[in-house]
């Protein structure tokens, strides 16, 4: 009798173990995969929070003050716009190294027209944006009509533009841009954040929508990943690439508008320093939210992730060279990670 009882209990226990094993097996089968993809998507956001907390333990008064972030959000708005400008041609498979130059040119065009020639701000902005579009058209002409590699063309036009800026600026800083523009970019605040930030936010949403929810955005991705596939599927590849390059330069010109409004002055050289931060953010952003693709929300998070890190290190009293370390290192690490994501994806298949 005892014997029977004992065997029953063993059998019941064994059954329990099997059930548990099945449960864990089921539990592990899919969720682990989805945990991995969750980590991939939101890893950058988590990292952002982590650096805020880590730097906050050293400098709580500054790192946990809303005002620090409000200022940072506002003063990096043009970096967001410049990064958005970059990811459009990157998605269709072209580099645009002239964006920072175009931003500087637009800034200088506004200042010269407004200050030296007395043109009202709205007119100056329109002309600056048209100048940007023209730069894009010139880039597209050389890249597509002559078939020159985009990296080379835009490297050249970017340098060319930096010369143009010095020329029209007479090699000096132009100060005294109308307060109307400064008000419209930085002096007006909403929730404590300068309105310039909201322009960047609206553009981020618009480009996110374009890439994720429109047929045009999906086709752009095909143009970038498989030009021949897109062409044979009836996509006008030339028009797409031209459009992307013109959109990129026009957005870069808009970044120039924000940049001028933020400072009320235009100088001939400082805009050029934003090329690397924008590239770093574009590639870092491509590892987040929609991993493996250049995407607007990822770019947005990446810009503020990088600038939070720099802000915190400044609070710690680290020298300004840290910016270069951060952006330069960020770019290489971001590209390495995106390579890893892509590589692993294809190996999984």
């Amino acid at each position, binding site marked *: 009798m005892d014997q029977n009882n004992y065997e029953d209990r063993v059998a019941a226990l064994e059954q329990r173990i099997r059930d548990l094993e099945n449960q864990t097996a089921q539990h592990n089968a899919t969720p682990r995969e989805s945990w991995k993809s969750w980590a991939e998507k939101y890893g950058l956001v988590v990292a952002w929070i982590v650096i805020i907390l880590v730097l906050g333990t050293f400098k709580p008064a500054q790192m946990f003050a809303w005002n620090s972030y409000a200022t940072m959000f506002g003063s990096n708005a043009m970096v967001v716009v410049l990064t958005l400008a970059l990811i459009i041609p990157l998605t269709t498979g072209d580099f645009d190294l002239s964006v920072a130059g175009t931003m500087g040119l637009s800034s200088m065009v506004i200042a010269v027209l407004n200050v030296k020639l007395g043109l009202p701000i709205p007119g100056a902005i329109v002309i600056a944006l048209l100048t940007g579009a023209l730069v894009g058209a010139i880039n597209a002409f050389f890249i597509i009509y002559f078939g020159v590699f985009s990296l080379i063309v835009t490297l050249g036009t970017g340098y060319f533009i930096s010369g143009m800026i010095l020329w029209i600026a007479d090699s000096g800083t132009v100060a005294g841009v109308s307060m109307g523009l400064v008000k419209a970019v930085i002096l007006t605040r909403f929730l404590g954040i300068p309105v310039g930030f909201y322009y960047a936010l609206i553009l981020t949403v618009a480009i996110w929508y374009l890439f994720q929810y429109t*047929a045009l955005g999906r086709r752009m991705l095909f143009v970038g990943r*498989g030009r*021949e596939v897109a062409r*044979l599927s009836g996509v006008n590849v030339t028009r797409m690439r031209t459009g992307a390059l013109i959109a990129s330069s026009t957005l870069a010109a808009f970044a120039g508008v924000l940049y001028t409004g933020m400072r009320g002055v235009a100088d001939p050289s400082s805009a050029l320093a934003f090329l690397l931060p924008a590239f770093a953010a574009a590639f870092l952003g491509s590892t987040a939210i929609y991993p493996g693709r250049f995407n607007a929300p990822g770019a947005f998070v990446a810009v503020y992730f990088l600038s939070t890190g720099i802000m915190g290190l400044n609070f710690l009293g680290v020298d300004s060279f840290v910016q270069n370390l951060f952006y330069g290192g960020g770019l290489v690490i971001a590209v390495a990670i995106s390579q890893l994501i892509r590589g692993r994806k294809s190996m999984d298949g």
Partner: protein
Amino acid sequence: MNVTDHTRGIPFGGAALEIEHLSKQFGGTYALNDVSLHVARGEVHGLLGSNGSGKSTLIKVLAGFHTPEPGASIRLYDQSLPLPVSGVKARAMGLAFVHQHLGLIGSLSVTENLFLNKLATEDGWGLNWNALHREASDIFSRFDLAINPRVEVAQLSPVQQALLAIVRAYEELRHASEDHADRPGVLVLDEPTPFLPRAGVEQLFRLVRQCTNLGASVIFVSHDVDEVREITDRATILRDGHLIDTLETAHTSHEGFVEPIIGRHLEDYGGHAKSLNDAQTRVRVTDLAGPGVGPLSFDIAKGEILGLTGLIGSGCDEVPALTYGARAAGAGTIELDGETRPLAQMTPEEALDWGMAYLPADRLGAAGVGSLPVADNTAMPVFDRLRKGLGLTARAIEQHAHGLGARAGVKPNVPTLPLEALSGGNAQKALMAKWLQIEPRVLLLDEPTQGVDVGARQQLWDALDRAAEGGACILVGSTDYDQLAQICHRVLIFARGQIVAELSGAELTQETIAEHCYRSTTELA
């Protein structure tokens, strides 16, 4: 030792390669399940199976890419090979591989490629290029090959490149067996033929026989039953990771091979040409001319599947691309349902808009994007149609692609997978479905079943048949005569850019197509 019956009069002195109880698991499923396989000395041993049968896993285990499950053993000439296989060790013991991509460097010379391993490990500074070129010429002349050692590999024809890769692998074997002549080596040819024209395949087979005559054994991996029947002494068939059978080639019919490969009886598909009841011309191409092609004219009836074939360089493969505007035609017009347009100005955009669709042969280069999901690849032509409310959602695309994949028999039908994760056959099913969903009036195909397994081929053909029954005009450019004989109503034979013969009805068989292809070139020469 099992004594193997042989068919080519080669003395089989026992086994060259013995694989015992080889298994390989991927995430709980067996890609190879207890496979034991013996390759005799001097034998050409075929390895057949559809995609996913485990034949590429088997080759990858041999090449050292995969670690087999414990319990397996691999012996080369009675010497045990440590597992997992180390590439260097295997080569030293006499195992050499030629993969489909050949592993040649196009920008280097033939000689540099031939001695690539030697050059990579050579310590000396000075290289005597003249001596190396001479050595290369000597090797080629031993195999009766006319290859100039000084030219760049990129300038060789695809056939010459394949021959070079095989000679190089054989030379490595010979080098490895210099000290022990009793171990001439095993050469593994992993699908070397799909991209070669028929004449090239024959040249390649001649080289394979030269290698076996010198004592080496050859494992010949292929999709093509006819090629396996032609070149092998015995052939092993894998299906779903199991070894189904090892067959004596000489005693096995075509069906005898095909049935174990697909695991069911092959529907009697062809053998008799299909005919159209009511053939009204729907497409008329007139005076089409392009680089190396034409001027030529042909027409396609409503619901007709028209095949275009010829030897390599005949221009038959250019016609679908020229008709679609994928490559610029020099001249010609196309008439579709009574409307005529010039072909010289045709663009893919216009062609698509007009109801034409084109599926190129380069599956992941021109037909689909490997790194993007299957969903995006298949839904691409109908993005505009899938937009609802706020916009085009990933969910709408995936649902659409899932339905499309289910109807086309894509396996696994997971639309979020990147296209490159699918096997050749399944990727092709998905890409064919991409175009069939827009119900084109004219469907232009280039080598639609290249590198596709027997089962998937059947499904692709069924899909074409249904489209044709719906009234579409289908143009198939292919050098697969068997395929053309089975699916086409009519076949046009090309030579030197011209149509030289038209086959239909009782004339339309694999043999007559082949005969016309070869006859046409000799007549024109």
